[in-house]
């Protein structure tokens, strides 16, 4: 992992800090609400990995599509789904971004072209390929971005999808968030070749790895890849080397990794790193951070109020939206 070297503008840096802090604090609140049994089911926190979503989303246009996984709260928020709608979804309320039917793992939003929220590991890859196929067949210029964890690499669908995207020259950006553990299985315990971006190269796809703990590195890599895809009309692949600070889900006792390892990675916290860097360059001071924290706290407060005040879908509507005509 190399320290960030690029010069960041005050405006750009503050935007990233704000994005990452919004995700971090929202999820910390979610963990708390989970403890209060307001949020149930599975809850997979992105804490530690925020730089990947924060560095990626600004490079996409509104017309592009995003496909994500069950660890997608940050992607959803930074793609532009309101925190209110996300929080209400976590509560299972009708006002949620999926009408309450999906929950934490299945955030969807047609307006921002956010296609989930797929909780089958690697299940989103073929979907992104298909969205890109539709764009290509209809001569549209937009791209599809697919986020997934390194656990997906072991699935056949990963290889099938990369091959198809390369074979048909489809505008897909595959972003592998390599946080080193597929649930509790370390990458080295499950893959014979752990340099994930090399697997994409074997399909003839432009591929590189970036420091996923550094939002500047992420952004630089994504910008280059997106430009390439738009110009060359071919897929690209990025491996973001990152780390999850929290447990896999709220049920995970974390028997598979040492406290020391987690603490070491926490030293690379993307928010702390960028804050320190910008302070050192005298681009920001404590008041800037306080301002972001205060705004974020207010946003979270109103999101929780919104979710609390939301409505349960009537049981009479139970079988709604199974088929289109039943609506």
């Amino acid at each position, binding site marked *: 992992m190399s320290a960030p070297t690029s010069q960041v503008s005050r405006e750009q840096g503050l935007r990233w800090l704000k994005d990452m802090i919004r995700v971090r604090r929202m999820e910390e609140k979610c963990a708390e609400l989970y403890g209060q049994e307001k949020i149930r089911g599975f809850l997979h926190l992105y804490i530690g990995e925020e730089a990947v979503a924060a560095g990626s989303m600004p490079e996409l246009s509104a017309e592009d599509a995003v496909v994500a996984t069950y660890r997608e709260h940050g992607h959803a928020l930074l793609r532009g789904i309101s925190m209110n709608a996300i929080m209400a979804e976590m509560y299972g309320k009708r006002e949620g971004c999926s009408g309450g039917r999906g929950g934490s793992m299945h955030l969807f939003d047609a307006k921002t072209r956010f296609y989930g929220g797929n909780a089958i590991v690697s299940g989103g890859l073929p979907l992104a390929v*298909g969205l890109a196929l539709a764009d290509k067949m209809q001569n549209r210029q937009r791209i599809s971005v697919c986020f997934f964890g390194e656990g997906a690499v072991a699935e056949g669908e990963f290889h*099938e999808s990369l091959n198809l995207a390369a074979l048909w020259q489809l505008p897909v950006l595959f972003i592998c968030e390599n946080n080193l553990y597929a649930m509790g299985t370390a990458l080295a315990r499950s893959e014979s070749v752990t340099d994930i971006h090399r697997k994409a190269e074997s399909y003839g796809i432009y591929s590189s790895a970036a420091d996923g703990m550094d939002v500047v590195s992420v952004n630089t890599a994504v910008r280059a890849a997106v430009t390439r895809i738009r110009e060359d009309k071919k897929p690209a692949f990025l491996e973001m080397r990152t780390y999850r600070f929290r447990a896999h889900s709220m049920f995970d006792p974390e028997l598979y990794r040492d406290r020391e390892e987690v603490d070491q990675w926490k030293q690379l916290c993307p928010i702390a790193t960028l804050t320190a860097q910008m302070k050192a360059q005298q681009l920001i001071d404590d008041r800037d951070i306080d301002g972001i924290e205060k705004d974020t706290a207010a946003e979270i407060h109103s999101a929780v109020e919104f979710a609390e005040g939301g409505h349960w879908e009537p049981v009479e509507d139970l079988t709604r939206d199974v088929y289109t005509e039943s609506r």
Partner: protein
Amino acid sequence: MTTTYREAMRAALRQALQEDERVFLMGEDVGRYGGCYAISQGLQQEFGETRIRDTPLSESAFVGAGIGAALGGMRPIVEVMTVNFSLLCLDQIVNTAATLRHMSGGQFSVPLVIRMTTGAGRQLAAQHSHSLECWYAHVPGLRVIAPATLEDMRGMLRLALEDPDPVIIFEHNALYNREGELTEVAVADIRRAAIRRPGKDITLICYGGNLHKTLEAATASAESGIDAEVLDLRSLRPLDDETILASVRKTRRAIIVDEGWHSGSLAAEIGMRIAEQAFYDLDAPLARVCTAEVPIPYPRHLEQAALPQVESIVGKVREVMGQNV
């Protein structure tokens, strides 16, 4: 006009491709090869490689890509060579195609058509001969249909493409070479079961590739004075309870003919629905003719012994007619 089921499906595909630019066909060997069962022969020359799209042997990826393309505004027809191979894309069909609309709170419908062959009878042994359509019929969010007549083979595809949700078409491979008179295409229906032979003594419920055996069995039974009604389900999900129950209430007896295995079969589901809703209308216990509980064997005599046959249906009709409650 005289035609085969193969030509009827090819004509349906051609018409769909001509009428709607969003329609395209993809699958293994659908292009240059002309389709494993020669359904799409000549279509690639006519419509080009973009719209008649050969895929690698990646069922999960190309079915998933079909889902994505449907979300992206296309009207994909995905051909999976046989239902046996569809197990490699079961995840995409069951976990994504069938759930997306619901999981997204009604935001995303998946107008995808998946065609696959099903059924035994050609000595293709235990990995190419199974009838697993009831697995798909189990899943809310999917529509599952099975053409049994030339008219339905010709007309169902268009109706499936008009459906805003995922539709799976099961084509029994024994039908393709069959020849007959194609009358009016417009009579095809994917919502209502059809009475293919009216009768008053017993209802024989069947679908897809077993319609013709069942009709023959009805004709044979007529020689012994039994007037059987033959009901073609057409849609395996949802089931048309209304037509099924109306027929059974009239004849007061029912046999379900199903090429799936007995256990957990569509026949079991249909029988239970009749028992739930028309038990007191019955004059005899419900019965079924299904495939023996064995992976389909290769030798012809064993394969034929495993499957529903005209003789076994006739035998079951006699048995049920001999019983009274």
